[in-house]
Structures are given as C-alpha cells and as structure tokens.
C-alpha cells in the first residue's frame, strides 16, 4: 500500500484565505448563489438524497424477491417499488449525477473561465430540478406510481390507477433542468475557453461533457413532449396514442425511446470522461490516442440517436425497421470498444498507483466491458427475441449503470474531493469501500444474467420456484452492495471536518483545475491562465500546466 500523499502543512494564512465556501455563510448565500461551485454542491446534496430514495426501493425489492411467492409486499406495491426505483434512479440520479455535480464544478475551472456562461440559468436549473423532485416525491407519498419507468401506453394512459400525472409532470419539469445544464455547458465550452486552449488541448472530461450536452439538447425535449402528450391523454381520456381513434401505442414507445436510449449514453459518457482523467493521472501518462478517445465520445453522442429501435424488436415492429436498428446498434458498440482499448493501452509503460479513484477506474473498465458486450446479445435480433423483457436486460443495464456510471461517479467524487472541500479522505477506508462495492455488485448482478437466459421475466413480484437460488444470491449481493455504498457516505462526511487539509494538487495531476488553491476562490483564477501545452503531458514536467 503506497503511503497517503503527504498533506501540505496548513500555513496560518492558508486557513484564513477566502474561498468559495467561507466567502459568505447562511441559507441565503446558498439558495441565491450563482457560483457554479456552490451550485455543484447543491446538486451533490439533492442527488445523494435521491440516490438514497432509489436505493431504499431497490433494497426492499431484493428483500421481497428472496422467496418465489414473496409475501413481503403485495404485487401492486412491488410494482410501485420497481417503478419508483426506475424513475428516481434514472431521471433524478443517473442523468444529472456527473454533469450537474462534477460537470458544474469543473467545466469552468478546466477551461480557465471564471464561471459558466449563464450563472443565473445554472441556478434556475437546480431549482427546476428541485421542483421536479418535489412532484415525484409527492407522487411517491401520495400512493406511488405503478407503470414502470417506461410509462408504456395504453396501460399508463387508460388503465393505471396511480399518480401517473404527478410523476409525468415531475419528470417533464426535471427535463428542463437537463436542457438548461446542457445549454450552459455548450455555450461555455465554445465561447469561454482560456487563450491557447484549443479543442485538442481540452481535457477529455470536457469532450465527454460536451458530447453529453449535445444529447441533453437534442434528446430531452422529445421526452418532454412525450410525457406532455401522455399527461394530456390521461387527463382528457383521448389522445394520439389511443388505439380506439386510430392511435398507435408503439408510437409512444418510439418517442419515449428516442430520448431514453440516448439518455443511457447521457449517463455513461460523463463517466467515460472521468475515467480518462483518472487513468491518465494515476498512470502518470498521456492518454493513448487522444483524438480517437475524443472523437469516440462525439461518435457515441451522434449514433446513440439512431439505435432506439432495439428496445422494440419484439413489439410487432416492422422486421425491416428491426434490421436497420440492429445494424446501427452494432455500430454504436464500436466507439465504446475503442475507448476501452485506449484506456487499457494508457496503462502500458505507465507508473501506476492504486489509490481509491484508480480502483474505481479499473473496476469501471472491467465492468463496463462486460456490460457493453452483453449489449451485443440484445442488438442481434435472434437472441433478443429470447432475452427481451427478462432479467438479462436488467443485468445488462445495471452492469453499465451501476458498474459503469456509479463507479465512475464515485471515482470522480473521490478524485476531486480535495478540490471540492480542501480536505483529504482516508484512502484506506476508501479502497475498502471500493472493493466491497465491486464484490457486492458482481454477486448481485451476475446471477441475473443467468436468470435472464433461463427465461425469468423482469418486473415479476412472484416467480417460479426454480429461479429461487439465483435470486437469493442476487439479494445477498444487494445487501453487500448497499453497505458498500454507505461506507463512502460516512468517511466523506467525516473528512469534511476532520480530514487533513489538501494542498492545491494532492495527486500531482495535470489540468487547469489543479492550478487553483483548494478549495478554489469564488472567481477561480486571479487572472485567466494561458495554456501552452497538450493535455496530460506528464512526461514533460511535473505538476502545473504551464510547462
């Protein structure tokens, strides 16, 4: 175990230095802030709360599924649990997780700007997120919604007797929070880069956030109009998806998945950006094939809009449309493969250290590869007929969302924690937490691949007895995973008060954000830095970007 990086002795003037946290105190200073760093922390708090809500739902589901004829919950209640787990985790945790917290905090600092292009819009996006969350939390308390996070009509429009409109409104409103965040990032990255910071000197995290913002801008409005139409159809009892007047329920699925598949790339792309930062910093080496990794982010963003039909292979979609979507779904796997190979190649001839962020990064690469390759089963028409709607699908997207996006999110939080709070966390505990999460995760979701291939359908409150052994293993893994997630919560909070003070660059990483003291002052830089060298060139000099 390499020793903890020696903390810089806190000079007396250092602690009295004015930075974005102690520049002003009180509720008003937080609720009316336009500082991108404070908004990032506001998001961090609200997102962690929503993660806990989703996590509790997941734990209850796994407890219920221990017995084949589960008696813990009524089937109706179980349906509400998996719907809440789906909606809260997708729309309120995974979509905003990295862009709104790390993205908001780091984008201006990484490109040498004082703040995002539209700070007031940034604060508005947080308030819109909060209003959306309140609608959804109201729906949960008022009886929950049981349509699944996909809201398929005609069940959600005509037959469901639960808070569908409240949740649809909540997700509709939160969509605008993503749009405002995406808009802010695109304009900031285009217009506010420091002098000398050309596109190919940008950190890859910025490329990933830029690609994610493109999906925010082009995809989110379509789910907004879709849920708007769903709400109207449910209120007026007449609408365009109603088969009685010639409507087509599959059209709802087309519109829904037009956003929701790119949305899964919204969730993973920022994670890929974080991994590029972590792998290069902890291997102390330039990224292998910079332009290929950058362009693969853009390629994923574009092709992700062409593949949504693979969710509908068995819904009576036309065979020929199925062929088109199948070929495009195979195409979208290529850029992800290129990224994984480039990360692995970056480790070659590096000088790798194994602190917690690096463990998360290596865990990400392994699990994301597994998740991505199981996607090929679902892109190929013949096997998707058997696997669609089973636990194979549940395992596939959890490998990418939990094994990928959440691991990258935790890795990113640990990596930039010293910059966020000016404190170092206990690395020993952090590594232990990472290992518990890795083990718990695999024990939870690998059995679900087997359950899926055996034919156990998803969203089942009760299941035939022969699937019980695998379900018990999965539930056991879920309890380990649940504990694994609590560990970082504890020592990160602890480190906020008792953690040793971190110097401006505890990991000796490259990047403009490490040029500022941590925690950084409100206006980030005394004067805007001039960038003269490429990203991640650890080989040339140590620390500092200006060579």
């Amino acid at each position, binding site marked *: 175990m390499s020793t903890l990086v020696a903390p810089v002795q806190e000079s007396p003037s250092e602690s009295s230095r004015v930075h974005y946290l102690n520049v002003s105190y009180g509720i008003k200073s937080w609720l009316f802030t336009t500082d991108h760093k404070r908004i990032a922390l506001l998001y961090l708090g609200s997102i962690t709360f929503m993660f806990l809500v989703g996590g509790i739902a997941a734990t209850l589901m796994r407890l219920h599924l221990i017995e084949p004829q589960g008696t813990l919950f009524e089937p109706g209640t179980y349906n509400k649990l998996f719907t809440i787990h789906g909606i809260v985790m997708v729309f309120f945790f995974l979509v905003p997780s990295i862009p709104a917290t790390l993205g908001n905090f780091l984008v201006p600092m990484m490109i040498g700007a004082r703040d995002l292009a539209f700070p007031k819009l940034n604060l508005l996006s947080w308030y819109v997120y909060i209003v959306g969350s309140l609608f959804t939390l109201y729906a949960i308390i008022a009886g929950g919604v049981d349509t699944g996070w996909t809201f398929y009509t005609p069940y959600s429009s005509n037959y469901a007797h639960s808070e569908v409109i409240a949740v649809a409104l909540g997700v509709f409103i939160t969509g605008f929070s993503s749009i405002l965040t995406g808009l802010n990032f695109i304009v900031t990255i285009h217009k506010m880069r420091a002098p000398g910071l050309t596109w190919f000197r940008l950190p890859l995290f910025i490329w990933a956030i830029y690609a994610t913002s493109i999906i925010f801008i082009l995809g989110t409005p379509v789910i907004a109009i879709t849920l708007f139409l769903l709400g109207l159809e449910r209120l007026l009892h007449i609408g365009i998806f109603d088969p009685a007047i010639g409507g087509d329920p599959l*059209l709802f699925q087309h519109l829904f998945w037009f956003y929701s598949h790119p949305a899964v790339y919204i969730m993973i792309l920022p994670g890929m950006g974080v991994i590029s930062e972590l792998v290069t910093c902890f291997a102390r080496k330039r990224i292998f094939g910079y332009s290929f990794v950058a362009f693969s982010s853009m390629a994923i963003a574009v092709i992700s809009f062409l593949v*949504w*039909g693979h969710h509908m292979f068995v819904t*009576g979609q*036309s*065979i020929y449309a199925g062929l*088109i979507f199948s070929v495009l779904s195979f195409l979208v796997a290529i850029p992800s493969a290129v990224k994984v190979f480039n990360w692995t190649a970056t480790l070659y001839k590096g000088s790798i250290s194994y602190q917690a962020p690096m463990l998360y990064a290596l865990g990400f690469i392994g699990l994301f590869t597994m998740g991505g390759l199981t996607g090929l089963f679902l892109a190929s028409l013949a096997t998707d007929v058997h696997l669609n709607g089973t636990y194979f699908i549940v395992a596939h997207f959890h490998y990418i969302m939990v094994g990928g996006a959440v691991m990258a999110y935790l890795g990113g939080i640990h990596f930039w924690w010293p910059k966020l709070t000016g404190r170092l966390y206990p690395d020993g505990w952090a590594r232990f937490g990472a290992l518990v999460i890795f083990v718990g995760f695999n024990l939870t979701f690998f059995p679900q691949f087997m359950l899926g291939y055996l034919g156990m359908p998803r969203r089942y409150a009760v299941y035939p007895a022969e699937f019980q052994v695998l379900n018990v293993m999965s539930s056991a893994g879920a309890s380990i995973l649940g504990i694994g997630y609590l560990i970082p919560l504890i020592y990160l909070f602890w480190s906020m008060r008792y953690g040793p003070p971190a110097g401006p660059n505890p990991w000796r990483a490259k990047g403009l954000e490490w040029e500022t003291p941590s925690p950084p002052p409100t206006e980030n830089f005394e004067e805007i830095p001039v960038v003269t060298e490429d990203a991640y060139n650890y080989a040339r000099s140590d620390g500092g970007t200006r060579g």
Partner: protein
Amino acid sequence: MSDQEQRGHIVPVGIYVRIFLGLIVLTGITTAAAYVDLGAMNTVVALAIAVVKMLLVVLFFMHVKYSTNLTRLVIIAGFFWLAILVALTLSDELTRHWTPESGAWSALLPILPRFF
C-alpha cells in the same frame, strides 16, 4: 474588434420591408395553391413554400446570413435530428405490414446459414 462586429450586423430597413412583402406574397401563393387540384403535389408545394418562407425569416430577420458558421451548424443539426426522428419512426410505421415473401432479400437467406 471593428465597430461592425462589436455591435452585430445592422441590416438596412429596406431589406426588412422587402422580405416582409415577399413573405406576405408567399402566404398568398400557398393559400391560393390550396384551391388548385395538384393531387399529391399539393403537399409538396405547400411545404416548399413554407421552407422558402422559413429561410427568408431565418436568414434576414434572424441575421443568420451575417452570423458565424457555428450558428448555422447548430440550426442544421436541429433540423437534421428532427429528420432522424421522423425518418426512422416512419421506417417502422410504413413497413409494418410488409411480410418477407420468398422473393427479394430473404431469398438470399437460405444460402447464408449453410456457412454457420
């Protein structure tokens, strides 16, 4: 920064009025065209006129004629993504009742599996 760029391009009023008149005339044409039986062409003509009117408004009223290529790229991307949504959704809705008879591409299929 030349003064022109500093304040953004100033378009003489004359152009605005001419564009306005053009739009009014085109509205008249498209309405009149609706009363003439062109069969399927009715829709094509109506859409063509609408696109021309849109271009007039975008290029002159919204100054895109004088603005950066980035703005033009953003606009084109917007319409291109809308085209993706329409095209791929129609690719399903319109071909849903086609059944693969033994002819056409599916004839090729019986040969392929011999290789796997």
